C-alpha cells in the first residue's frame, strides 16, 4: 500500500497530473515509431506516397504488404536462423560457463586467481576487438558463411562466468559439505544442487544473451555474405537495401515481422525481462 502523503490534495493532484503529462509525451515519442510502422504496414502505396499525417489508413492493405514482404525476402528463414544461432550460442555458453563459474566460486585449484583476473579483463573486451583475427582464422579454414562462424566468438561468455560466480558464491558452504559427506561428486553437486538454486540468474542471463545475439549486426555482417545464413538484423539490412520498389508499406511490414518475436516475448515475460536487466545491468 502506498501511504497517503501530505500536503494538501490539490498539490498532490497537480503533481500527479504533471507527472502523467510528462510521461505521456515521452511515451508517445517512444511508441511513435512502432505505431507508425504498424500503420504504414497496412497502408496502400499511393496513400504512403502522398505523405499525409492521417493516422487511420483509408484502405486496408495489410495482406498485400505482408505477403509482398514475405515473398521479396526469406524473412521466416532469417527468423529460423536467429533461433538456431541464439539457441546454439546460449546452450554452449551455459555448458562452458556454469562449471567454470562454480569452480571459481567454490573450489580451490591452481591458477584460480589468474583465471579470474582474465575473466574480469575479458569483461572490458567487446566483440569488435577480437573480430579481425577471428575473421582471418575463419577465412583461413574456409569456415565463413556458416552457423559456426556466427556462433564461435560467443561460445565463451566471460560475463556469464562472472555473473554465475557471484551467484554461486552466495550458496551456503554447509550444504556443499553435507553433499560431499553424503558421497556426491562435484559434478553431481553442481548439477543437482547448485544449478537448480541459481535458476533465476540463469534465466536472467539467458534473456540477456538472446536479446543481445538476436539483435547483433556487427559480427554477422562480417562473416556472412549469403542470405541463407543471415540472422534477422542482417536479413533486414539486405531487405532494406534490396529493390522493395520504394514501397515503404512492404518495408514496414518486413520490419514488423522482424521485430515481432522479441517484442512479443517481452510483452509476455515483462517481469523476467526487467529482472534480467537489473541483475545483469550490462548491455
Amino acid at each position, binding site marked *: 500500500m*502506498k501511504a497517503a502523503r501530505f500536503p494538501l490534495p490539490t498539490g498532490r493532484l497537480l*503533481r500527479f497530473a504533471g507527472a*502523467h503529462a*510528462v*510521461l505521456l509525451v*515521452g*511515451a508517445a*515519442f*517512444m511508441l511513435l*515509431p*512502432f505505431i*507508425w510502422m504498424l500503420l504504414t504496414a497496412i497502408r496502400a502505396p499511393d496513400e*504512403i*506516397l502522398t*505523405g499525409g*499525417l492521417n493516422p487511420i489508413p483509408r484502405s486496408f492493405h495489410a495482406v498485400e504488404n505482408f505477403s509482398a514482404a514475405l515473398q521479396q525476402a526469406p524473412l521466416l528463414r532469417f527468423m529460423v536462423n536467429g533461433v538456431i544461432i541464439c539457441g546454439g550460442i546460449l546452450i554452449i555458453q551455459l*555448458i562452458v560457463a556454469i562449471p*567454470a563459474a*562454480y*569452480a*571459481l566460486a567454490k*573450489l580451490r*585449484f591452481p591458477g584460480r586467481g589468474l*583465471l579470474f583476473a*582474465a575473466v574480469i579483463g575479458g*569483461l*572490458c573486451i*567487446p566483440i*569488435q*576487438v*577480437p573480430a*579481425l*583475427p577471428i*575473421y*582471418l582464422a575463419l*577465412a583461413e579454414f574456409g569456415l565463413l558463411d556458416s552457423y559456426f562462424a556466427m556462433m564461435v566468438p560467443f*561460445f*565463451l561468455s*566471460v560475463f556469464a562466468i562472472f555473473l554465475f560466480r557471484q551467484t554461486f558464491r552466495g550458496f551456503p558452504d554447509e550444504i556443499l559439505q553435507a553433499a560431499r559427506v553424503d558421497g556426491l561428486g*562435484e559434478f553431481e553437486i553442481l548439477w543437482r544442487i547448485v544449478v537448480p538454486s541459481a535458476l533465476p540468474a540463469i534465466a536472467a542471463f539467458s534473456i540477456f544473451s538472446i536479446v543481445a545475439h538476436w539483435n547483433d549486426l*556487427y559480427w554477422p*555482417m*562480417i562473416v556472412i555474405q549469403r542470405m541463407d545464413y543471415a540472422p*534477422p*538484423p*542482417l536479413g533486414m*539490412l539486405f531487405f*532494406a537495401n534490396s529493390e522493395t520498389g520504394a514501397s*515503404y508499406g512492404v*518495408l514496414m511490414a518486413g*520490419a514488423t515481422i*522482424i*521485430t515481432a518475436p522479441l517484442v512479443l516475448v517481452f510483452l509476455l515475460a*515483462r517481469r523476467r*525481462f*526487467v529482472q534480467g*536487466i*537489473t541483475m545483469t*545491468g*550490462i548491455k
Partner: protein
Amino acid sequence: MTTLALAPAVGRVPRRSRPVREWLAGTLFVVPATMLLLAIILAPLLCLLILSLTDYEIGAMQIRWLGLGNFEKALSDPVFRRAMGNTLLYVALVLPGGVILGLLVALLVHGRTRSRAFYEVAYFLPVTATLIAMAAVWQFLLHPKLGPVNGLLKAAGFPEMAFISEPSLLIPTLAVIGLWNLIGFNMILFLAGLTAIPRDLYDAAEIDGAGGPIDRFLTVTWPQLAPTTMFVAVTTSITAFKVFDTVAVLTRGRDGSEVLLYAIYLEGFQYFKIGYSAALTVIFLAFMLAFSVFQAFQLDRRVHY
C-alpha cells in the same frame, strides 16, 4: 585430515583426500572455458596487437613491419579524425541525455502505482526491438517528403529538415535515435536503484522538514542513487561509443556520419587493410579499457554504510 581419520569408522575409505579431489574437479571444470578464453580472446588479442604494427593486407605479397606507423597514419588521417570526432560528439550528446532522461523517467514512473506497468512497457519497448528494423522505420519517419516528422514540421510552419542527408544533422539525428533506444534501459536500472532506497530515509526527511520534492531529491534520492548513476553513466558511454547499427542502416558512414566502429569495419572488412584496421581497433580498445578502469575505480570508493 579429519576426513581420513573418521572415514574407517563409517566403513568407507575415500580414494583421494579432499584437496586433491577439489583440485582435480576445479581444473576439469575450467578446461573448456580456459581453452575458449585462449582461442577467442587472448590469442586474437595478441594477434591484433601484432597486426596493428604491420601493413598486412589480404592478398598482399609480403608483410612489412611498421612499428607505430599505423597509429601515426591514423592521427593524420582526416577520415579517422572525423570518425573520432563524430563518435565523441555522439557520446557527448547521448551520455547526458541518456542519464538525465533515464533518471527523470524513472523518478516519475517510480511514483506511479496503477499505470506503472504501462509506462515500463512503453519506455522499454525500444530496447527489445531489433534496432536495425527500427532504424529502417526511423528512416521512413524522417523521410523529407513521406515521413510524418517532416509532415508535422511543415504543418507547424517550419521548413523541411533533411535529417538523414544534411551532414551537420546526421550525428544529432543518430543521437536522438540512440537515446530512443537507450532511455528505457537506463530507466530500469534507475528504478532498481530507487527501489533499494530505504523508506526510513524518506520518513526521516519528512520529519526533519525536508519533505518537499526538491528537498527529498537532494537529501535522500540523489545521494542514494550516486552509485547507480555512476554505473549508468559508464554503461551509457560504452554503448554510445559503440554506435554502429544505425549508421549501417541509415547512412552507411557517408559524409558527416563517420564513426569509429564503422571506420574499423570499412578498413578491415571492406578494404581489407587489416593492419590499419587493427591499429584503429587498438585505439577503440584503449577507450573501452579507460571506461572500465574508471568504473572500477568509482565502484571502489562508493558505499556509505
